[in-house]
């Protein structure tokens, strides 16, 4: 019940009571209420004409990094006796210092400025609304208004620095890089022995082979190292990522950021495909700008209700066959077909799979039946991963209770053998 309505109702009830019982004191009792109501309405604000400007210490921050927001509100209209100014924040943002609200009195032409700090969960946030609720000092006449401001905030996922990720796609690009190209030429790793060519350095002559074959000289050939096309596919399906109120998705995002960073820092061409609430492509690119693009895109991704990778189409002009695909997904058994299709199209596939079994188990009671169920699901998952490995897919089964850096050092930095299966 609004305050104005309450006072008005009480006044009318008293007047009615006075008329029914013909009582002057009861009628007189209504008079202070009438005066109170009239004074409140007389002083109640008309239109709210406020102008808000916002300054932020940063437009993009890492997770857990605080942003300082300064709001300046100027009153271009009539004086406001009491106005509550409230920065409208997303529920994932948390004020860490100061307050996003001010209760002030603003004279005509006056202004008020205040600063507060906030931080939040990974995401992209529009900070473009400040709610102003003006009222008289009795709080009877209220006028609410939403004031527009400029402001956006990217809270980026953390980027773990990995040293290298060893991949061996069959197709490489022409520029030199760090990925073995299965072609002889300038390089570091031994590749083959060939006839000596005029111009070869004397240090490249393989004296052992030359000694066995006295008819000529033989030189060592090294494996060229080139850059490659890497397509990272991030699985954002609720079905695979959400377990009750807990989600493994943030781990996937973190791994994706780390992988994108390491591939781009070694000169490769990287694109990101997200399959969640929206199907989203970050077109392939090189360098630091591409890292920024991918991090920005990662910050705004949300999980969605897609069931299977049914509409997962990889355009060949962006990712030619025989290039590298990296799938970051907890995986479900239905995904085998899609992964097999990738292999049949010639892609080299690396799957980084945050382990949903241990993740889900951590949130369950340690009952015997749960343990039994865990063993069954674990066996099923291991059989599934074995099937994937059987068709030449490199699979990293990541227990998310372990830091991703440790897993990456153990399973991704080692030089990969040429995998069997597929073309």
């Amino acid at each position, binding site marked *: 019940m609004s305050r104005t309505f309450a006072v008005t109702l*009480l006044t009318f009830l008293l007047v009615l009571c006075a008329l029914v019982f013909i009582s002057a004191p009861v009628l007189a009792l209504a008079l202070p209420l009438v005066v109170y109501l009239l004074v409140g309405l007389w002083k109640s604000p008309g239109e709210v004409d406020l102008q808000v400007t916002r300054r932020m210490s940063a437009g993009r921050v890492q997770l857990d990094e605080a942003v300082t927001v300064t709001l300046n509100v100027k009153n271009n209209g009539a004086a406001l006796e009491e106005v509550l100014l409230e920065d409208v924040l997303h529920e994932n943002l948390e004020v860490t210092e100061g307050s996003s609200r001010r209760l002030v009195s603003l004279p005509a032409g006056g202004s008020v400025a205040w600063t507060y700090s906030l931080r939040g969960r990974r995401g992209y946030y529009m900070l473009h609304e400040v709610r102003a609720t003006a009222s008289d000092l009795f709080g009877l006449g209220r006028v609410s208004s939403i004031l527009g401001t400029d402001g956006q905030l990217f809270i980026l996922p953390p980027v773990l620095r990995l040293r290298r990720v060893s991949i061996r796609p069959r197709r490489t690009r022409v520029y030199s890089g760090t990925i073995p190209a299965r072609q002889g030429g300038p390089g570091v790793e031994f590749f083959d022995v060939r006839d000596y060519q005029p111009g070869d350095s004397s240090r490249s002559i393989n004296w052992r082979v030359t000694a066995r074959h006295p008819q000529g000289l033989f030189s060592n050939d090294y494996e060229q190292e080139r850059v490659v096309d890497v397509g990272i596919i991030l699985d954002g399906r609720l079905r695979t990522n959400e377990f009750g109120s807990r989600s493994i998705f943030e781990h996937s995002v973190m791994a994706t950021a780390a992988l994108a960073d390491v591939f781009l820092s070694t000169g490769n061409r990287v694109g990101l495909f997200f399959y969640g609430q929206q199907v989203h492509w970050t077109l392939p690119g090189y360098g630091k700008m591409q890292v920024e693009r991918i991090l920005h895109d990662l910050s705004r991704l949300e999980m969605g209700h897609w069931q299977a990778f049914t509409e997962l189409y990889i355009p060949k002009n962006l990712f030619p066959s025989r290039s590298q695909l990296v799938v970051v997904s907890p995986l479900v058994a239905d995904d085998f077909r899609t992964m097999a299709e990738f292999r049949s199209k010639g892609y080299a596939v690396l799957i980084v799979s945050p382990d949903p079994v241990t993740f889900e188990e951590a949130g369950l009671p340690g009952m015997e039946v749960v343990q039994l169920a865990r063993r069954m699901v674990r066996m099923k998952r291991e059989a599934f991963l074995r099937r994937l490995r059987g068709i030449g897919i490199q699979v990293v089964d990541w227990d998310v209770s372990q830091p991703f850096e440790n897993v990456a050092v153990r399973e991704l930095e080692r030089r990969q053998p040429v995998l069997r299966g597929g073309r």
Partner: protein
Amino acid sequence: MTRYLLFASNLLGFGLTALAFASGGKPWLAAVLLLFAGFWVYASLRRWDWSVTLGLFVAYGFIAAGFLLDLSPALLFPAAFLLLAGWDLSGMQARLRLADPGEDTTPLQVRHLLRLVLTLLVGAGFVWAALTLHLKLSFEWTALLAILVAFGLGRLVSRLLKRA
């Protein structure tokens, strides 16, 4: 400041009303009112906002009943003013809770209190005038005043509806 004043004015308002009933030979009604005052204090501490308006209606109901039972106006009118002030201060306190705890709202509170006191004084003046001045009006003047009152109430209602 507002918090203490609102408790003080409400408790004093309830107390004066109960005293009026007790001194008028209705001790059981006074006891009921004091019990309600206890509930009101509890509800206020629990921040049940609806209890504030309920308290005003119940207290004014008792005061009106007190007038009809010919209890002492010297106790009932001050009680009515204190209860109205308490209800208003409760609203102010609720709005102050929305402000930043570190914010200095003292000037706002002082201005609010000044206006409240002035308003209540004007209200008290009208009450005094209504109870002491007895004008003999002709039928024509009474009719004119009735029309003006109806017009004023109509404007008031339309303004309230426009704001709502």
